[in-house]
Protein backbone atom coordinates (compact mmCIF):
# COMPACT_ATOMS: atom_id res chain seq x y z
CA UNK A 1 0.00 0.00 0.00
CA UNK A 2 1.42 3.33 -0.98
CA UNK A 3 1.26 6.22 1.43
CA UNK A 4 1.30 9.47 -0.41
CA UNK A 5 -0.21 12.89 -0.51
CA UNK A 6 -0.98 15.66 -2.90
CA UNK A 7 1.62 18.23 -1.84
CA UNK A 8 1.56 22.03 -1.73
CA UNK A 9 -2.16 22.73 -1.74
CA UNK A 10 -2.78 20.54 1.27
CA UNK A 11 0.04 21.99 3.36
CA UNK A 12 -2.11 24.94 4.33
CA UNK A 13 -4.75 22.78 5.95
CA UNK A 14 -3.09 20.82 8.70
CA UNK A 15 -6.01 18.85 10.09
CA UNK A 16 -7.06 16.98 6.96
CA UNK A 17 -7.48 13.29 7.69
CA UNK A 18 -5.87 10.78 5.36
CA UNK A 19 -8.35 8.44 3.71
CA UNK A 20 -7.95 5.34 1.66
CA UNK A 21 -8.74 5.39 -2.04
CA UNK A 22 -8.52 2.95 -4.90
CA UNK A 23 -6.73 4.17 -8.03
CA UNK A 24 -8.86 3.83 -11.17
CA UNK A 25 -6.64 5.67 -13.64
CA UNK A 26 -3.55 4.27 -15.31
CA UNK A 27 -2.08 7.75 -15.37
CA UNK A 28 -2.32 8.64 -11.69
CA UNK A 29 1.21 9.25 -10.43
CA UNK A 30 0.54 8.56 -6.75
CA UNK A 31 -0.33 4.91 -7.31
CA UNK A 32 -0.86 2.23 -9.91
CA UNK A 33 -4.29 1.28 -11.23
CA UNK A 34 -6.00 -0.93 -8.67
CA UNK A 35 -3.70 0.12 -5.83
CA UNK A 36 -5.15 1.26 -2.56
CA UNK A 37 -3.46 4.43 -1.42
CA UNK A 38 -3.85 6.93 1.38
CA UNK A 39 -4.31 10.56 0.45
CA UNK A 40 -4.96 13.66 2.48
CA UNK A 41 -7.32 15.67 0.32
CA UNK A 42 -9.56 18.65 0.84
CA UNK A 43 -13.23 18.16 -0.01
CA UNK A 44 -12.93 19.84 -3.42
CA UNK A 45 -9.74 17.99 -4.28
CA UNK A 46 -11.45 14.71 -3.44
CA UNK A 47 -14.54 15.71 -5.42
CA UNK A 48 -12.47 16.64 -8.48
CA UNK A 49 -10.60 13.33 -8.46
CA UNK A 50 -13.78 11.32 -7.86
CA UNK A 51 -15.69 13.12 -10.62
CA UNK A 52 -12.82 12.61 -13.04
CA UNK A 53 -12.83 8.88 -12.40
CA UNK A 54 -9.22 9.07 -11.24
CA UNK A 55 -9.80 7.46 -7.85
CA UNK A 56 -12.67 6.06 -5.83
CA UNK A 57 -13.16 5.70 -2.13
CA UNK A 58 -11.80 2.35 -0.96
CA UNK A 59 -14.69 0.11 0.03
CA UNK A 60 -12.73 -1.63 2.74
CA UNK A 61 -12.19 1.60 4.60
CA UNK A 62 -15.82 1.64 5.76
CA UNK A 63 -15.53 -1.91 7.12
CA UNK A 64 -12.23 -1.05 8.77
CA UNK A 65 -13.77 2.03 10.34
CA UNK A 66 -16.68 -0.04 11.66
CA UNK A 67 -14.28 -2.61 13.14
CA UNK A 68 -12.24 0.19 14.71
CA UNK A 69 -15.32 1.74 16.28
CA UNK A 70 -16.47 -1.68 17.56
CA UNK A 71 -13.07 -2.30 19.18
CA UNK A 72 -13.09 1.14 20.74
CA UNK A 73 -16.58 0.58 22.19
CA UNK A 74 -15.50 -2.80 23.59
CA UNK A 75 -12.43 -1.27 25.21
CA UNK A 76 -14.53 1.54 26.66
CA UNK A 77 -16.98 -0.96 28.14
CA UNK A 78 -14.16 -2.90 29.80
CA UNK A 79 -12.76 0.32 31.22
CA UNK A 80 -16.20 1.27 32.50
CA UNK A 81 -16.55 -2.09 34.30
CA UNK A 82 -13.20 -1.53 35.99
CA UNK A 83 -14.19 1.92 37.13
CA UNK A 84 -17.47 0.67 38.67
CA UNK A 85 -15.54 -1.49 41.21
CA UNK A 86 -16.14 0.12 44.64
CA UNK A 87 -13.54 0.28 47.47
CA UNK A 88 -15.59 -2.33 49.40
CA UNK A 89 -15.44 -4.68 46.43
CA UNK A 90 -11.72 -4.10 46.20
CA UNK A 91 -11.29 -4.95 49.93
CA UNK A 92 -13.30 -8.15 49.50
CA UNK A 93 -11.17 -9.13 46.56
CA UNK A 94 -7.98 -8.47 48.57
CA UNK A 95 -9.27 -10.52 51.51
CA UNK A 96 -10.20 -13.40 49.25
CA UNK A 97 -6.74 -13.31 47.73
CA UNK A 98 -5.12 -13.31 51.21
CA UNK A 99 -7.17 -16.30 52.32
CA UNK A 100 -6.28 -18.27 49.22
CA UNK A 101 -2.52 -17.78 49.78
CA UNK A 102 -0.86 -20.19 52.23
CA UNK A 103 0.62 -18.78 55.50
CA UNK A 104 4.16 -17.65 55.25
Amino acid at each position, binding site marked *: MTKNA*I*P*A*AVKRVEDIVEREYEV*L*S*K*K*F*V*HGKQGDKIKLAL*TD*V*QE*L*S*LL*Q*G*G*IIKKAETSTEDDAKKVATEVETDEKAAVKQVTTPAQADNAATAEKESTPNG
Partner: protein
Amino acid sequence: MGKLVLKDCYIVVNGTNLSDHVDAVTLDLVKDGVETTSFSGGGRERVAGLKDDTVELTFQSDFAPASVDAVLYPLYDNETEFTIEVRPTSSAVGTANPKYTATCVLFEYAPLDGKVGDLAETKVKINTQRTGFTKATA
Protein backbone atom coordinates in the same frame (compact mmCIF):
# COMPACT_ATOMS: atom_id res chain seq x y z
CA MET B 1 22.18 17.01 -21.29
CA GLY B 2 23.00 19.49 -24.01
CA LYS B 3 20.64 21.25 -26.36
CA LEU B 4 17.18 19.83 -26.19
CA VAL B 5 14.55 18.96 -28.70
CA LEU B 6 11.22 18.65 -26.96
CA LYS B 7 10.02 15.11 -27.43
CA ASP B 8 9.31 13.80 -23.99
CA CYS B 9 8.06 16.58 -21.71
CA TYR B 10 6.59 15.33 -18.48
CA ILE B 11 3.37 17.06 -17.47
CA VAL B 12 1.37 16.05 -14.43
CA VAL B 13 -1.88 17.85 -13.64
CA ASN B 14 -3.46 17.18 -10.26
CA GLY B 15 -1.63 13.88 -9.96
CA THR B 16 -2.51 12.67 -13.47
CA ASN B 17 0.19 12.27 -16.07
CA LEU B 18 -1.22 13.92 -19.19
CA SER B 19 2.08 14.11 -21.10
CA ASP B 20 0.69 11.94 -23.91
CA HIS B 21 -2.12 14.46 -24.55
CA VAL B 22 -0.06 17.68 -24.53
CA ASP B 23 1.73 19.00 -27.62
CA ALA B 24 2.79 22.45 -26.45
CA VAL B 25 3.89 23.88 -23.14
CA THR B 26 4.98 27.34 -22.04
CA LEU B 27 6.02 28.17 -18.52
CA ASP B 28 5.83 31.92 -17.99
CA LEU B 29 7.67 33.09 -14.91
CA VAL B 30 6.56 36.64 -14.31
CA LYS B 31 7.10 39.26 -11.64
CA ASP B 32 5.47 42.65 -11.61
CA GLY B 33 7.94 45.44 -12.23
CA VAL B 34 7.04 48.08 -9.69
CA GLU B 35 8.32 51.42 -10.82
CA THR B 36 10.58 53.33 -8.48
CA THR B 37 11.80 55.92 -10.97
CA SER B 38 12.89 59.14 -9.35
CA PHE B 39 14.61 62.35 -10.36
CA SER B 40 18.00 60.85 -9.62
CA GLY B 41 18.45 59.11 -12.94
CA GLY B 42 17.94 59.56 -16.62
CA GLY B 43 15.71 56.53 -17.08
CA ARG B 44 13.17 54.26 -15.50
CA GLU B 45 13.93 52.18 -12.42
CA ARG B 46 11.98 49.23 -11.10
CA VAL B 47 11.96 46.67 -8.31
CA ALA B 48 10.43 43.24 -8.44
CA GLY B 49 6.86 43.04 -7.20
CA LEU B 50 4.42 40.17 -6.91
CA LYS B 51 4.91 36.93 -8.82
CA ASP B 52 2.26 35.97 -11.32
CA ASP B 53 3.52 32.82 -13.04
CA THR B 54 1.38 30.98 -15.53
CA VAL B 55 1.63 27.82 -17.58
CA GLU B 56 0.06 27.45 -20.99
CA LEU B 57 -0.65 23.92 -22.15
CA THR B 58 -2.18 22.73 -25.40
CA PHE B 59 -4.11 19.54 -24.79
CA GLN B 60 -5.33 17.13 -27.42
CA SER B 61 -8.92 16.79 -26.29
CA ASP B 62 -10.03 13.48 -24.85
CA PHE B 63 -13.33 12.95 -23.11
CA ALA B 64 -12.61 9.44 -21.88
CA PRO B 65 -12.76 8.79 -18.13
CA ALA B 66 -9.60 9.87 -16.29
CA SER B 67 -8.31 11.72 -19.34
CA VAL B 68 -8.05 15.40 -20.29
CA ASP B 69 -11.63 16.59 -19.80
CA ALA B 70 -12.19 14.33 -16.81
CA VAL B 71 -9.20 15.93 -15.11
CA LEU B 72 -9.66 19.56 -16.18
CA TYR B 73 -13.42 20.09 -16.02
CA PRO B 74 -13.82 19.23 -12.30
CA LEU B 75 -10.84 21.46 -11.49
CA TYR B 76 -12.53 24.35 -13.28
CA ASP B 77 -16.02 23.57 -12.01
CA ASN B 78 -15.11 22.99 -8.38
CA GLU B 79 -12.57 25.83 -8.30
CA THR B 80 -10.06 23.37 -6.91
CA GLU B 81 -6.49 24.26 -6.09
CA PHE B 82 -4.27 21.63 -7.65
CA THR B 83 -0.62 20.97 -8.36
CA ILE B 84 1.17 20.94 -11.68
CA GLU B 85 4.56 19.43 -12.35
CA VAL B 86 6.48 20.04 -15.55
CA ARG B 87 9.86 18.55 -16.52
CA PRO B 88 11.79 18.85 -19.80
CA THR B 89 11.87 15.06 -20.03
CA SER B 90 10.28 12.17 -18.21
CA SER B 91 13.66 11.07 -16.83
CA ALA B 92 14.43 11.32 -13.14
CA VAL B 93 14.70 14.81 -11.71
CA GLY B 94 18.26 16.14 -11.66
CA THR B 95 20.37 19.15 -12.47
CA ALA B 96 19.90 18.45 -16.18
CA ASN B 97 16.22 17.68 -15.79
CA PRO B 98 14.69 20.07 -13.27
CA LYS B 99 11.09 19.91 -12.21
CA TYR B 100 8.90 22.98 -11.97
CA THR B 101 5.98 22.64 -9.60
CA ALA B 102 3.23 25.00 -8.58
CA THR B 103 -0.15 25.14 -6.93
CA CYS B 104 -2.62 26.39 -9.49
CA VAL B 105 -6.21 27.29 -10.20
CA LEU B 106 -8.07 27.02 -13.47
CA PHE B 107 -10.24 30.02 -14.31
CA GLU B 108 -10.74 29.43 -18.03
CA TYR B 109 -11.34 26.21 -19.89
CA ALA B 110 -12.61 25.60 -23.40
CA PRO B 111 -13.49 21.91 -23.64
CA LEU B 112 -14.05 22.18 -27.39
CA ASP B 113 -12.10 24.48 -29.67
CA GLY B 114 -11.56 23.85 -33.37
CA LYS B 115 -12.80 23.84 -36.94
CA VAL B 116 -14.07 21.06 -39.12
CA GLY B 117 -11.36 18.58 -39.90
CA ASP B 118 -9.09 19.84 -37.12
CA LEU B 119 -7.67 17.74 -34.35
CA ALA B 120 -9.69 18.71 -31.29
CA GLU B 121 -7.30 20.63 -29.10
CA THR B 122 -7.74 22.99 -26.21
CA LYS B 123 -5.27 25.61 -25.08
CA VAL B 124 -5.39 26.19 -21.36
CA LYS B 125 -3.73 29.01 -19.48
CA ILE B 126 -3.32 28.11 -15.84
CA ASN B 127 -2.57 30.62 -13.12
CA THR B 128 -0.32 29.74 -10.24
CA GLN B 129 -1.11 30.70 -6.68
CA ARG B 130 1.06 32.48 -4.11
CA THR B 131 4.66 31.26 -4.55
CA GLY B 132 4.31 30.53 -8.25
CA PHE B 133 6.58 27.93 -9.79
CA THR B 134 9.42 26.46 -7.78
CA LYS B 135 12.32 24.71 -9.42
CA ALA B 136 13.85 21.58 -7.92
CA THR B 137 16.76 19.49 -9.13
CA ALA B 138 16.49 16.65 -6.65
